[in-house]
């Protein structure tokens, strides 16, 4: 036992002085009041009776003195703040990382794993010592400390209550690095006071490795793991994508994947909804660990939203409902305005006719030079077919065989029979195209500027470049299509339509929306200063806009609405807000089997110890309570005239 409040010498001095004072006060007789009586002889018998019990009276007075001395001793020791030597006066420092990832929504224990984890953390709080300090952090796609390092149990309880489940995967490495940074410098030589990282989780955290490498936990930090969860039964949607057909945007196809991550065979019912209307209903039987892809081609009817849901059939059980619902939005069918500056090109006009959602305007180069300004302003895309303007338009543009000073890229030397020898096949404008055997009679070498991307190039030099000038995208093709057999190929209209879609962000690839747990960069109209995001639960929050995109770390699945605002906070978009979907779609997160142990950098997490509920380590509290009890006894004995 050690004294944290006073030294032994101070405590002995205080106790000695106080005890001496009380004893002296007991020895000193109080000045009695004098009372006249008419006949004192009557008191003699009474006094004789009192004298008979004088021994008892003395004992009572001694009892009263002992009570007072006990009271002083208790208070003195309470001031001294005695503690068990094993607990040390400095106390422990803990960072408790509470897993709030999607798998913690599993209902195999209690109401949910997260609530069970909260209960475990509250037990730790109840077992904290007076000098112990603790920080509670929520571990999901980010790591969020929910309060300062504190020993205030009510404050810590509030922090635990603030933990909310997410539909995202936990960023375990980041959480560990945060905990390490928090505990840095708080270590002590005594092993009992080692700072401690406590991970309360189901253990489905993946490897503690990030871009900086593997996380290493220092040896002077205690690393413990408090597992939560028992079951592994779960069937979830792990893929969900939709795309419009490039050449028939009124139709679309859906691809999804259902995975049984549990150890038992599961029967589920898969429902597909289009605009909240049931499109398809299928019963599936999945073997343990089976991934079952489903493909729904040539669908129509839905204009905007698609949802997939799975429901466990009777007799089966699904412990994680978070991955039973997936969301997707079809690309909007906006009619893009295309201004074609051409002296006349049948192949070009014919290719543009293939997309019924294009509003094409043809104009001659002369008319464009004379009065094309207003027309360009409302166009989404301007196609310059062999005619290069003196100044670039304030719109996205496709340049076919550009030349002259107005070209976004300089034209180099003439190329004879160039070909697409090198193709960046990942670029969206060349998707689904076969350009490798295109024959070209002649062309010009294009000179890209820094930031431009060469999508196609011959041995002699680039012939297909994409880039951006003054905030507008462009595609430059270094040859006249009529000097090639490209217009005779399917690749020609695809290249054109891909380029237009590239400009208008209407990708014809599979769209699965945003994934929870990632940083979303949602395009907003140029000039927007900030944006207001309305989450699936109806909560609106302002988010920043960076380089034309609203940036947000989303952690919940569902449909979101984004409204761009100008710098004054007014609605910047005149049209409808941008709607997009977000999904979990994470097979690893759907695998909810709790890990029995947790290993980080080869170091196995220990088990939690030293936090017994119901016994705070501040002895002074109990001393104070004892003093109150003694006071109550003294009060009772006084009023019962026992010690009088």
């Amino acid at each position, binding site marked *: 036992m050690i004294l944290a409040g006073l030294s032994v010498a101070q405590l002995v001095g205080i106790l000695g002085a106080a005890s001496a004072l009380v004893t002296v006060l007991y020895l000193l007789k109080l000045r*009695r*009041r*004098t*009372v*006249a009586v*008419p*006949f004192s002889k*009557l008191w003699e018998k009474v006094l004789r009776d009192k004298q008979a019990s004088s021994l008892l009276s003395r004992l009572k007075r001694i009892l009263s003195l002992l009570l007072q001395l006990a009271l002083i001793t208790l208070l003195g020791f309470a001031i001294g703040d005695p503690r068990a030597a094993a607990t040390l006066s400095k106390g422990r420092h803990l960072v408790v990382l509470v897993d709030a990832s999607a798998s913690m929504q599993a209902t195999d224990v209690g109401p949910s794993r997260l609530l069970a984890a909260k209960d475990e953390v509250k037990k730790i709080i109840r077992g904290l010592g007076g000098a112990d300090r603790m920080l509670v952090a929520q571990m999901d796609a980010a790591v969020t400390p929910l309060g300062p390092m504190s020993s205030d149990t009510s404050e810590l309880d509030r922090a635990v209550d603030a933990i909310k489940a997410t539909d995202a995967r936990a960023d375990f490495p980041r959480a560990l690095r945060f905990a390490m940074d928090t505990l840095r410098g708080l270590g002590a030589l005594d092993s009992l006071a080692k700072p401690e990282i406590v991970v309360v989780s189901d253990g489905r955290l993946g490897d503690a490795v990030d871009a900086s490498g593997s996380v290493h936990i220092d040896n002077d930090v205690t690393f413990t793991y408090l597992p939560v969860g028992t079951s592994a039964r779960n069937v979830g949607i792990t893929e969900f994508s939709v795309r419009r057909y490039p050449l028939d945007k009124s139709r679309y196809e859906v691809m999804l994947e259902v995975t049984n991550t549990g150890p038992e065979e599961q029967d589920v019912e898969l429902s597909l909804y289009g605009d909240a209307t049931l499109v398809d209903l299928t019963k599936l039987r999945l073997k343990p660990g089976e991934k079952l892809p489903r493909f729904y081609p040539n669908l129509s009817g839905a204009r905007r939203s698609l949802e997939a849901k799975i429901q466990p059939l009777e007799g089966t059980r699904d412990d994680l409902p978070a991955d039973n619902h997936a969301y997707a939005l079809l690309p909007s069918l906006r009619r893009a305005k295309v201004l074609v500056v051409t002296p006349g090109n049948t192949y070009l006009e014919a290719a543009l006719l293939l997309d019924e959602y294009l509003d094409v305007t043809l104009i001659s180069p002369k008319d464009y030079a004379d009065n094309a300004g207003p027309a360009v302003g409302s166009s989404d895309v301007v196609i310059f077919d062999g005619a290069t303007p003196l100044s670039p338009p304030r719109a996205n543009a496709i340049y076919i065989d550009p030349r002259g000073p107005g070209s976004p890229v300089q034209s180099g030397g003439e190329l004879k029979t160039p070909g697409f020898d090198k193709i960046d096949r990942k670029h969206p404008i060349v998707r689904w195209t076969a350009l490798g055997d295109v024959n070209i009679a002649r062309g010009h070498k294009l000179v890209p500027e820094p930031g431009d991307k060469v999508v196609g190039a011959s041995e002699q030099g680039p012939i297909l470049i994409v880039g951006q000038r003054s905030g507008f995208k462009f595609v430059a093709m270094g040859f006249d299509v009529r000097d090639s057999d490209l217009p005779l190929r399917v690749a020609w209209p695809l290249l054109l339509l891909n380029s237009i879609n590239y400009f208008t962000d209407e990708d014809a690839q599979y769209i699965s929306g945003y994934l929870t747990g990632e940083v979303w960069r949602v395009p907003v109209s140029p000039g927007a200063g900030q944006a207001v995001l309305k989450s699936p639960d109806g909560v609106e929050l302002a988010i920043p806009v960076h380089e034309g995109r609203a940036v947000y770390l989303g952690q919940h699945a569902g449909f979101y609405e984004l409204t761009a605002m100008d710098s004054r906070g007014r609605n910047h978009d005149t049209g409808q807000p941008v709607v997009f979907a977000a999904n979990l779609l994470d097979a690893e997160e759907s695998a909810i089997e709790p890990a029995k142990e947790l290993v980080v950098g080869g170091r196995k997490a220990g088990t939690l110890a030293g936090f017994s509920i119901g016994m705070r380590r501040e002895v002074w509290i109990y001393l104070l309570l004892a003093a109150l009890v003694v006071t109550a006894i003294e009060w009772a004995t006084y009023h019962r*005239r026992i010690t009088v």
Partner: protein
Amino acid sequence: MLDAVRGALGKRPSAPKSTSKGDLFDDEFQRKLATLALVSKRVFAGRMRAERRTKKSGSGVEFADHRDYQSGDDFRTLDWNIYQRFDRLLVRLYEEEEDLAIYFVIDTSRSMGFAAGRKLKYAKRVCAALSYVGLANLDRVSLVSTTDRVMDRMPTTRGKARIFRVFRFLEQLEAEGRTNLEDAMKAFVAQNKRRGLIVLASDLYDPHGFQRGINVLRYNKYDPFVIHVTDAEDAKPKVLGDVIVYDCETGDEREVTVTASVLDRFARAYRDYLAEIEHYCSSKQVPYIQADVSVPFDELVLRVFRRGGFLR
């Protein structure tokens, strides 16, 4: 207040004194005296004045007793019949008829002045009332105040016109001094040779024993009539805690821690004391009346009449 508290340490409060002058015998009191006198007349209806007899042997006609002849005795009083039968010379004694002497002895010690002098005031009124009755019956009335000695006395008088003299005497009495009934009664007996009825009005707070004073009267052939003046407040002192009680007469001090149980024991001791007095008087055939100050004095006087011994 019963528990007159000292104002400062070592400074004892002055002894309580009667301050009953002026309003003690007001018109209302005197009207009640007249009523009491009429009541006493009714009790005496058909009797002669001064027919009450003393035990004094003398020249009366009713035989009282014999005694041995002594030289100098009148031969005419010898009982010759006894001489013939027993050969002894005995003298006949006769009860002498004379008017009764009534002495009112008022205890004026400090204890009688306790609690604003309620007991002394009450004793004065009772004695005044009984004096009036006695004067009205043509008895010889005398008043004496005592402590541990005879303090003051009003000479014997008769006739109810003298009642105002009684009033003046009583009004000037004040409570002071210590009680010693034995010494006081001895002095009284020495000063008053004429036997008679002695009405003793006292609280009987005599540290030497109340019996001694009464016994002096009994042994000297007086007829004592005890009016024990009591105050219920004496049995219930309003005091709690650690105190020093001191006797207002003797100054004796005692440390007491007064609790509820102590007060209970004190009340019991007080009752025992009263019972002891009553038992003593009844055993000695001494007429005894307990006069609580809360009882109206005229009611007490009537109780005295009913008790007998005062009016014969």
